[in-house]
């Protein structure tokens, strides 16, 4: 088995791994050897085709169709040079102060998160799109919310040179999105950080990692030939996403020392709803996500957002099949789409485990409270559609496939709570959080407030698995802020950690 040796190894290159790499990169000038091991591929520009099935295969774990153990939810997580920052819409929100207070992690202040988030917002060119670049799908959402008297806000997004391809979740074909693949990783590489793509970390131990490199059949070739490697390193930073980071630590045998490992997973469960308008809309052209409504975040625990998905994703998120389903798909140009996101509580039993092959199993139950929230959110989204002028809507828990505008006063009756049942509506998640939560107590947390794993001074976590609870808003800037803290702590402890 070939050997390689570094001082610092970073597992994953997304919002967490990319940020840590960029912040530690100046150490390379002093001779510190740093490498990123990224499971996914580094795609060539011409490989960002915007074709749904093809890009899902190239950019997501299990093509974006990873299932929870009970198969009630689909999980999407990016796997590529740049991780999930390649496949999100670029929405960049600072986590609200009240959320940091709910997190209640001793030593983690909101002011610190806010300051670091602002640094990355500036670095990633975060700004609001001008009104002339907002398409009908977005405008109608804002108009609908305002007509109902609900507060609507514009998403700050991290694009530069956006041409409005509208396929952010499939990787931007214009390379406009300022994910870590465009901002932090190139800086880190320029400074001397090595990036080994197509490299799956099988397990870790003090001083070494065991890695398998495979050729996926697309992307730039990995710098390392396919095969198994033993990689030595003094410091290891795990940033593979909430599910994969927990799974790696579990299959490396850390579960016995860390009772909270893999637990308190939150998924920000999401539903896609469709409103059908009389006329064709500009919905697929332009940036897909301009507005959100947090009117009900505090009172009912959900967020409404604009979204516009692609034919296959839309089809599978509608309920039913056959003629009615086909009828709605045929008028794709008339679709207005809304994404609802429910805040889910951190439950000790919602967790990542590993099967006998060491692969992650996501054991997650949608609680009655979250199902109540999803129910309320569906009714609210339907109200927005009708307020925006939709002729009819499709709601996953609707008594019928379509609810017509003339029935808008009967939404409570036509969308009954009893229809909101796991396994009978399409619930998905792209915000995987927790599993290696921060905290002071090793009994209920996995790392300290600086991301160091309790009892393992050489091991750190720097991704959304650190979140002790749901972030309640899109999590990427918060991940970067926490990763920045991890990098700072490693720099501060450099002498101790890197002495041989």
């Amino acid at each position, binding site marked *: 088995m070939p050997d390689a040796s570094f001082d610092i190894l970073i597992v994953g290159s997304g919002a967490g791994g990319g940020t840590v790499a960029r912040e530690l990169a100046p150490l390379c000038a002093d001779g510190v050897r740093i490498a990123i091991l990224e499971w996914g591929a580094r795609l060539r520009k011409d490989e960002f085709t*915007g*074709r*749904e*099935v093809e890009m899902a*295969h190239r950019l997501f774990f*299990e*093509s974006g*169709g990873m299932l929870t153990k009970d*198969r009630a939810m689909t999980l999407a997580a990016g796997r590529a040079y740049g991780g999930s920052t390649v496949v999100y819409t670029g929405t960049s929100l600072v986590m609200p102060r009240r959320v940091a207070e709910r997190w209640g992690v001793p030593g983690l202040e909101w002011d610190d998160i806010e300051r670091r988030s602002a640094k990355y917002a500036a670095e990633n060119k975060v700004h609001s799109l001008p009104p*002339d*670049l907002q*398409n009908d799908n977005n405008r109608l959402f804002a108009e609908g919310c305002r007509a109902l008297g609900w507060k609507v806000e514009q998403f700050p997004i991290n694009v530069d040179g*956006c*041409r*409005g*391809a*509208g*396929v952010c979740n499939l990787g931007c*074909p*214009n390379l406009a999105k300022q994910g870590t693949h465009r901002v932090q990783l190139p800086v880190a590489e320029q400074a001397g950080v090595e990036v080994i793509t197509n490299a799956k970390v099988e397990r870790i131990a003090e001083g070494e990692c065991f890695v398998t490199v495979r050729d996926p059949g697309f992307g730039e070739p990995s710098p390392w030939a396919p095969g198994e490697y033993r990689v030595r390193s003094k410091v290891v930073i795990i940033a593979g996403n909430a599910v994969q980071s927990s799974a790696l630590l579990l299959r490396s045998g850390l579960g016995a020392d860390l009772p909270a490992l893999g637990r308190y997973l939150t998924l920000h469960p999401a539903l896609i709803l469709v409103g059908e308008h009389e006329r*064709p809309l*500009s919905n*697929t*052209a*332009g940036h897909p996500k301009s507005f959100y409504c947090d009117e009900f975040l505090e009172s009912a625990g959900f967020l409404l957002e604009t979204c516009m998905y*692609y*034919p*296959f994703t*839309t*089809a*599978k998120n509608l309920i*039913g*099949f*056959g*003629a009615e*389903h*086909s009828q709605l*798909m*045929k*008028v*794709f*140009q*008339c679709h207005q789409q809304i994404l609802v996101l429910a805040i889910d509580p951190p439950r000790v039993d919602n967790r990542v485990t590993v099967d006998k092959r060491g692969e992650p199993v996501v054991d997650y139950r949608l609680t009655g409270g979250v199902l109540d929230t999803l129910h309320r959110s569906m009714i609210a989204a339907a109200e927005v559609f009708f307020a925006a002028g939709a002729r009819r809507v499709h709601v996953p828990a609707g008594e019928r496939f379509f609810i017509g505008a003339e029935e808008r006063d009967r939404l409570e009756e036509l969308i009954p709570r009893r229809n909101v049942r796991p*396994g*009978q509506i399409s619930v998905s998640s792209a915000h995987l959080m927790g599993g290696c939560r921060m905290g002071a107590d090793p009994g209920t947390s996995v790392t300290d407030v600086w991301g160091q794993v309790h009892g393992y001074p050489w091991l750190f976590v720097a991704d959304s698995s650190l979140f002790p609870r749901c972030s309640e808003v899109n999590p990427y800037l918060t991940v970067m802020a926490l990763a920045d803290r991890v990098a700072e702590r490693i720099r501060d402890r450099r002498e101790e950690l890197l002495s041989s």
Partner: protein
Amino acid sequence: MDTLSQERASFLATVAERIVPEVGTLDLNGRTRFFQIIDEALRARSPAVRRQFGSLLGVIRWLPLLRWGTSFERLAPERQHRVLSWLMKCPSRTLRQGFWGLRTMVFMGYYGQPETWESIGYVPRVDGNEALYA
């Protein structure tokens, strides 16, 4: 298809027409692409999942025997729809989950083909912002 026998693949096409009626109007190339997409998706799954998928098709084929005394493909389209509707909400979690998986595969096979997009009005373009001003 490598992952399903010829007979199972042919039965899959029958079921698929009930899920997405337009599958029945695909030309030879479209049909080939439909099966290719599903084949690739199944190949990426574990052997156990592939076996379950094949078994589910067997269940759908013979389930109507209990009620109507004949196989799925011999039923009128309306009855075929009823069988699938029952499966979608069926009390057995295994069967229900199996049907949701099958439905996903069929949607992927049809709507995952860029060649079908124009017919539903999905016309993505890299310079979408230009379209906003058109």
